């Protein structure tokens, strides 16, 4: 009985182990990809015969070029303009836009105010909802669909992401007092470039992580008592972004033996792109120019980063961010969605692990 009791007591920590079955990776997409669609009020009219349509459409397309995301005509109904645009009467509005007398008369006869989708459909689920209101134009985006339904990763990619999720959790618990932990990975091999824990004040885990990545490129600004792995001479990749304490942990853990460690060395110094590297999103700049900041690298974080850290990762040109837990001050999902700000000059993808 006693023995069984002890066994039962031992069970809870074991149950904490991450379950393999329910592992999921959810893309955190901007509001443009939300399933709920927004509607707008518009003035429309039903013309008496289809023969009138051609002249009406021709003139509307020229003088009131609204609704690029919608079909202008549905059966004998024509969209005229957003209701909010009309200051006084529809007639005055049409006169203001120099609609010819004939068309104006046609348009003002059978007027209805209806609701139509306010913006274009990015995903099929949105499109299917939108067409219930009015026929829409739709250009399917295979990649966006795959992000939305989670089919964007291959089985082996998913398996690697899952290992990183488990590693974050283990490193935090076993090495870093339950504090935040970050791992930077070169996804091409894949190989762990740098690992970092939390510091004090503004020295959050992400800020350390980008500095450790800098160390792998013969840079790095922050002084620290931490020991870093020293490279063997004539090595082809560098371990200098890895603090010794994390490295030793990975080396003694049987489950981590096959994990590849190290970063590609920076290529010839004089060839380094300087302040603003290329903005050609179709080219893989990591392959073309070698390591530069965090270009092409993935970052795995135990906790959703704050605004400072999220912007640090924009400046560092990270490719993708994966995190496990949301934070109250998180700037990618909880408080804000920095990666949805179109004005920024770099955009990474964001995923949350669900267990």
């Amino acid at each position, binding site marked *: 009985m006693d023995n069984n009791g002890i066994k039962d007591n031992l069970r809870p920590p074991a149950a904490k182990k991450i379950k393999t079955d329910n592992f999921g990776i959810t893309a955190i997409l901007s509001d443009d990809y939300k399933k709920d669609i927004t509607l707008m009020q518009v003035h429309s009219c039903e013309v008496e015969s289809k023969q009138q349509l051609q002249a009406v459409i021709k003139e509307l397309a020229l003088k009131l070029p609204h609704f690029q995301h919608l079909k202008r005509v549905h059966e004998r109904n024509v969209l005229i303009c957003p209701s909010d645009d009309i200051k006084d009467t529809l007639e005055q509005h049409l006169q203001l836009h120099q609609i010819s007398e004939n068309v104006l008369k046609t348009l003002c006869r059978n007027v209805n105010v209806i609701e139509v989708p306010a913006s274009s459909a990015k995903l099929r689920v949105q499109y299917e909802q939108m067409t219930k209101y009015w026929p829409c134009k739709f250009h399917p985006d295979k990649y966006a669909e795959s992000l939305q339904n989670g089919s964007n990763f291959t089985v082996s990619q998913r398996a690697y992401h899952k290992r990183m999720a488990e590693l974050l959790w283990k490193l935090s618990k076993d090495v870093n007092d339950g504090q935040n932990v970050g791992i930077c990975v070169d996804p091409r091999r894949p190989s762990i470039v740098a690992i970092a824990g939390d510091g004090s*004040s*503004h020295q959050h885990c992400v*800020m350390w992580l*980008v*500095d450790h990545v*800098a160390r792998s*490129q*013969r*840079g*790095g*600004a*922050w002084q620290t008592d931490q020991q870093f792995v020293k490279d063997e001479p004539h090595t082809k990749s560098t371990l200098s972004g890895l603090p010794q304490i994390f490295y030793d942990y990975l080396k003694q853990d049987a489950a981590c033996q096959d994990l590849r460690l190290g970063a590609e060395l*920076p290529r010839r110094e*004089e*060839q*380094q*792109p*300087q*302040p*603003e*590297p*290329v*903005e*050609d999103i179709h*080219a893989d700049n990591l392959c*073309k*120019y070698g390591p530069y*900041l*965090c270009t092409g690298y993935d970052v795995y974080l135990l906790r959703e980063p*704050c*605004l*400072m*850290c999220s*912007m*640090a990762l*924009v*400046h*560092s*040109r990270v490719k993708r961010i994966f995190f496990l837990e949301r934070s109250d*001050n998180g*700037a990618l999902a909880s*408080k*804000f969605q*920095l990666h949805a*700000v179109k*004005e*920024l*000059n770099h955009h990474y993808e964001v995923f949350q692990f669900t267990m």
Partner: protein
Amino acid sequence: MATFMEDALVEARRARDAGEVPVGCVFVHNDKVIARGGNEVNVHRNATRHAEFICIDATLAYCREKRLPARQVFSEISVVVTVEPCIMCSAALHTLAVKEIIYGCENDRFGGKTVIDVAAVVGQQINITGGVRADEAMSLLKDFYKGENPAAPPVAKKKK
């Protein structure tokens, strides 16, 4: 406080001469500059080494040396910087709750006030004054970006 912009501009020029993006910053505490610096991104291969962060680190070192409470010192600091702090720096300065930020020209690409409302996201209001000797700060940036960068890949060039 705006008189300290000259000190910040000196740091910006120093950064330019070192091949860094010419942004300079000083932290003023009791009418005295206690931290100064320019961008150090390229030398450290670290995109977060902005002038403001150089000054934040220097201030923490100053507080350790003088045995001063950092939190209180930050709350009494006026940040004088040649360019509007970016979202990252602005978030850091709001979180550290500095007394005020005085900047030169706007940063329309990733300014922490112009592009997004950092104060609302962080949940901390700070007095921010822009436009102090903005033309000088802006012309430093323009001259810097005008210069041909021999290391830049050819695809980076935009058609005019």
